[in-house]
């Protein structure tokens, strides 16, 4: 969980996410829109349901995986699947 005062990101209330064979499938009911994210098993499907700081990622990832996932989180924010609080 993020420390007090740090901005956090979380799944937008209009969005849902679930695990598929290729990775995560995001759904935005406002479109509707789908986002197919080939994340494999790097992120669990409930990862975005908890408010987290943008830099907080699961343990045990390599540096390149962390970089990729940080970019991915930025994209999710940009596309409106996540929202900053």
């Amino acid at each position, binding site marked *: 969980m993020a420390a007090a005062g740090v901005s956090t990101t979380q799944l937008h*209330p*209009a969005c*849902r996410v*679930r*695990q*598929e*064979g*290729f990775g995560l*499938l995001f*759904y935005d*009911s*406002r*479109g*509707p*829109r*789908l986002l*197919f994210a*080939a994340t494999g098993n790097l992120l669990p*499907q409930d990862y975005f349901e908890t408010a987290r700081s943008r830099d907080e990622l699961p343990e045990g990832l390599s540096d390149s995986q962390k970089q990729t996932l940080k970019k991915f989180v930025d994209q999710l924010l940009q596309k409106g699947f996540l929202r900053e609080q």
Partner: protein
Amino acid sequence: MSNKYVEMGMRSPVNLTWEVSLACNLRCSHCLSSSGEPARDEMTTAEALDLVEQLHQARVFQINFGGGEPFMRPDFEQILDACHIRGIMTCISTNGTLLNAERVERLARSRQVAIQVSMDGSCRETCDAIRGEGVFEAATAAVKLLAATRIPTSINTVLTAQNASEIPAMHAMAHALGVSLRVSRFRPSGRGADNWESLRPSPAQLLAFSDWLAESGDVRTGDSFFSLTSQERQGLGLNLCGAAKLTCCVGPTGNMYPCAFLQTDRFKAGSLRENSFQEIWDNSEIYDSFRKLRIHSCEECKRFDQCHGGCPAVAWHLKNDINGGDPECLERCVTSIADTDRLALAA
């Protein structure tokens, strides 16, 4: 790009249509399911609530409720509540006649529901000719109630020969009421099959609608307007029939089908009274055949990448052949008009 992932197979549908009852207080001439009287042996409340839990376990994102008129089921709001408690988003297709201020206020509390009110013309005469006397007024009143809430609301119109020229006016009417417009395709299913020839839009009307739609970016279209330009559909990244891949249909008695327009024994994928939702989704031979469906006869068409053969349900109802390509696709509209012009010139 997205199709590659869809082809890999989804663990469950993204959304599904659940026709909770065949009961309806209207007798619309284009009704896809010939609704009126409830079906014999419709799902009980316990069965419906059990299905909601199964859909939650399967992580289905959204349920699109239709019928019949969903609010004809006394337990319908109980079913909705069960969905919302579990975080399943819902969209209700209603004729609007059973919505009142109290019901709308209850619905608005969930923040997880969207509502489509069916209207089939921009004026009383056109709408009521299809849906029945007094429906235009009742549906308009319902839209006004909904527009005053935070419930995402749209007017849903089935494009027919009778209302094709009124679609721009309906768009303006929706704007004036503070809601969006959604246009669905008319298919020869249910009573729509009985009235197909009198209600079907002409090729010229379909082409004119396509052109208008391309310029009207905020208009939503039904799932299977594959042959028509839709910014949202492009945004969704999908250009193929989603039946059995991204969506499916549950009928009033718990039978499952590829889509709402193929609710016949020929296309029955299974019964929820015999197997679980997940078992049917994973193992149905009918679903498997839809996942493997390739419309080879359309592959040479220049529009193939945009529609992949269009709507198998229309192909089935008009040609008894789901492999034959959509007989009403835009390319065939163009050909049909050209043929008519050639015949006229020759005469």
